[in-house]
């Protein structure tokens, strides 16, 4: 069975029904195992449920969450249909969990944003659309849920779709990028209408059911040949090296006994494709060479594409280390030490100018100083407000920062892998911020 893989997020307010939606997807596509259902049935009853299965409980794992009846962390669920394999990142809806929404969105190919047909387009739904757009999710499905409670009214659906669409048009200004492809869909997660099967109750809706759309949509790595190649070096393979931290010196001779002169640069292609013989540049150093071979455990490849993990052997003996980026010279990444980036702040202690953090981008580490905070996105209006003295927990704002060593990067709008970074607190080691590079600063 060869299937490709789609990652999508679900987001919505506490009672918008996203957990029910996931439960429904799993249940109807028959992925939910019997014993899990049993647990859920028992737990539903203990909670005073009336025998109807509370599908949302399938995704609430942690004790505290089950007790409070809400989801407070990203939960990952897995299912497959004959056409595709899926990973769902179920994200909390509340504003206080922006950091979790950003986390789930970072690797998603698609976002399902729920709108409660009765309550209408809320601040939370708007915020989720904003975060999805900012984080570069290429497709958004706005699922207008609980249609059963508004008598499956087409006019109500149209009204909400129009309202959301008008709001979404304003997003490109604040996110600085083209809007994701957006589809509007009327569903009832509770009844299953338009989730897996098309709804008999809403014949006026001509579009696909959710699962149908999920099975058909383009996936991030579908067109590797259309994008510039980016290969961050993660690890240098040198069997001859021997003396290194953690290497088992008393391993029997058989262990990886190989050509002692072998030197391979191992990593995962972040985007694009490379071929044997390609001329490449190594950034930020600037060295040039050709690819002598593309190695994998299963043999040499003539060509490799993202997201494969591989090992490159190069024609020239350049001194390349972890953190450097290999790409083609004619489509090189930007090199610089000064950046403008949108940062989502993820910790209690606010971000203030002048502070130093550890920055990790691809496999490269640097120290970064935040020179200034240009603006903060108002969480209610979703407008950028200037100026800003600090970024508080769950704030998203544009910052100007300087790094101790040059980075090789792309704007986040062009490349989610080479355009992203995290900030780490030097003392506590916590991950305190998520960054999306806008551009190099002058």
């Amino acid at each position, binding site marked *: 069975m*060869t299937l490709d893989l789609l990652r999508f997020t679900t987001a919505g307010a506490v009672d918008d029904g996203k957990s029910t939606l996931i439960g429904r997807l799993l249940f109807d596509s028959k992925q939910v195992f019997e*014993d899990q259902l049993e647990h859920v049935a028992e737990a539903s009853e203990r909670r005073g449920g009336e025998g109807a299965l509370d599908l949302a409980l399938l995704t609430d794992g942690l004790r505290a969450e089950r007790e409070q009846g809400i989801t407070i962390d990203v939960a990952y669920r897995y299912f*497959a249909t004959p056409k595709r394999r899926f990973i769902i990142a179920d994200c909390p809806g509340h504003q206080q969990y922006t950091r979790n929404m950003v986390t789930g969105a970072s690797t998603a190919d698609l976002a399902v944003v729920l709108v409660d047909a009765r309550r209408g387009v809320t601040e939370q739904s708007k915020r989720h659309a904003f975060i999805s757009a900012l984080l570069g999710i290429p497709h958004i499905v706005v699922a207008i849920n609980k249609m059963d409670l508004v008598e499956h009214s087409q006019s109500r659906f149209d009204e909400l779709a129009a309202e959301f669409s008008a709001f979404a048009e304003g997003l490109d200004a604040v996110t600085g990028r083209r809007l994701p492809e957006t589809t509007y869909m009327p569903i009832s997660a509770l009844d299953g209408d338009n989730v897996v099967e098309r709804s008999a109750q809403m014949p006026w809706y001509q579009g696909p059911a959710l699962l149908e759309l999920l099975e058909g949509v383009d996936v991030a790595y579908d067109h590797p040949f259309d994008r510039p190649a980016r290969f961050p070096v993660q690890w240098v393979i040198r069997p001859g090296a021997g003396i290194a931290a*953690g290497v088992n010196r008393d391993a029997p001779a058989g262990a990886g006994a190989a050509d002692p002169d072998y030197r391979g640069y191992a990593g995962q292609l972040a985007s694009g494709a490379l071929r044997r013989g390609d001329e490449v540049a190594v950034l930020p150093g600037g060295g040039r060479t050709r690819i002598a071979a593309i190695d994998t455990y299963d043999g040499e490849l003539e060509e490799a594409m993202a997201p494969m993990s591989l090992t490159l052997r190069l024609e020239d003996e350049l001194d390349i280390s972890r953190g450097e980026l290999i790409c083609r010279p004619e489509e090189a990444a930007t090199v610089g030490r000064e950046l403008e980036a949108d940062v989502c702040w993820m910790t209690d202690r606010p971000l203030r100018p002048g502070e130093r953090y550890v920055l990790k981008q*691809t496999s490269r580490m640097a120290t970064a100083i935040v020179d200034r905070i240009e603006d903060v996105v108002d969480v209610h209006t979703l407008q950028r407000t200037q100026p800003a003295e600090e970024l508080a927990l769950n704030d998203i704002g544009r910052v100007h920062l300087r790094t101790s060593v040059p980075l090789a990067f792309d704007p986040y709008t062009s490349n989610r892998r080479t355009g992203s970074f995290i900030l780490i607190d030097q003392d506590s080691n916590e991950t305190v911020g998520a960054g999306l590079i806008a551009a190099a600063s002058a």
Partner: protein
Amino acid sequence: MAIATRPQLSHLRALESEAIHVMREVAAEFERPVLLFSGGKDSIVLLRLAEKAFRPAPFPFPLMHVDTGHNFPEVIEFRDRRVAELGERLIVASVQESIDQGRAVEEQGPRASRNQLQTVTLLDAIAEHGFDAAFGGARRDEERARAKERVFSFRDDFGQWDPKNQRPELWNLYNGRVKKGENVRVFPISNWTELDVWEYIDSEGLEVPSIYFSHERPVFKRDGMLYAWREGTELIEGEEIFSETVRYRTVGDMSCTGGVLSKASSLEQVVLEIAATRITERGETRADDRVSEAAMEDRKKAGYF
């Protein structure tokens, strides 16, 4: 050199690539990693992933097995053979030794198991060797509390896991910075399902211990599960030993792992059986998860894998 086709990466290859990336990140950012190898199917997959990540060099870390002393003999035999094949170093951390040294107290009674004691042995071994990262084969689909686990799971000095204190994992940027005495569990196959694991084993032609395939063995029934009987097993009144054709979906300690009735005697048949199954791996076979609704969560907070 024409490019005839533009092949899609299959989901298994995409998952494999992600796992290799994780392992290389750990090798690069930690000083003393270790790979926890139990001889079970998930750790068997980890070994192959380590080969793909690091060959032609030796693994930049040893392998370690926390041995309860109550393992299926077939699994121990397999473990030793596979390690020798790979030419890598194996450390065996023994629960029996922990008991002998008074570090752990053996449970008594017919329902006794050394499952909980593994935590003590594991933490002691980590401290003794100074490991700062330990690879494990856990997956998020195994159990409800694991659905929220990160790929890098932070443990404090006591090996404890605080669900409120895990680091956000964005893109594929892992933050592995730790202080002295802290260590991380890393789960490269977090996003794999049980079916993915078996399909991978099949496509890679990996050998697994024979107990994964149906075989006849003396068993007894307890609490709705079929346990293997071995010399020294204490039976409760009314329990009887009988011979049954079973196989194991998961390989834990003999005292807490139940077998399932099955005639699946080949990899292909196992894959078909799993694809059709409606009961989760752990639900069917692990007594340790049944104690309470939040059993796994509680054990992780105490430092279990």
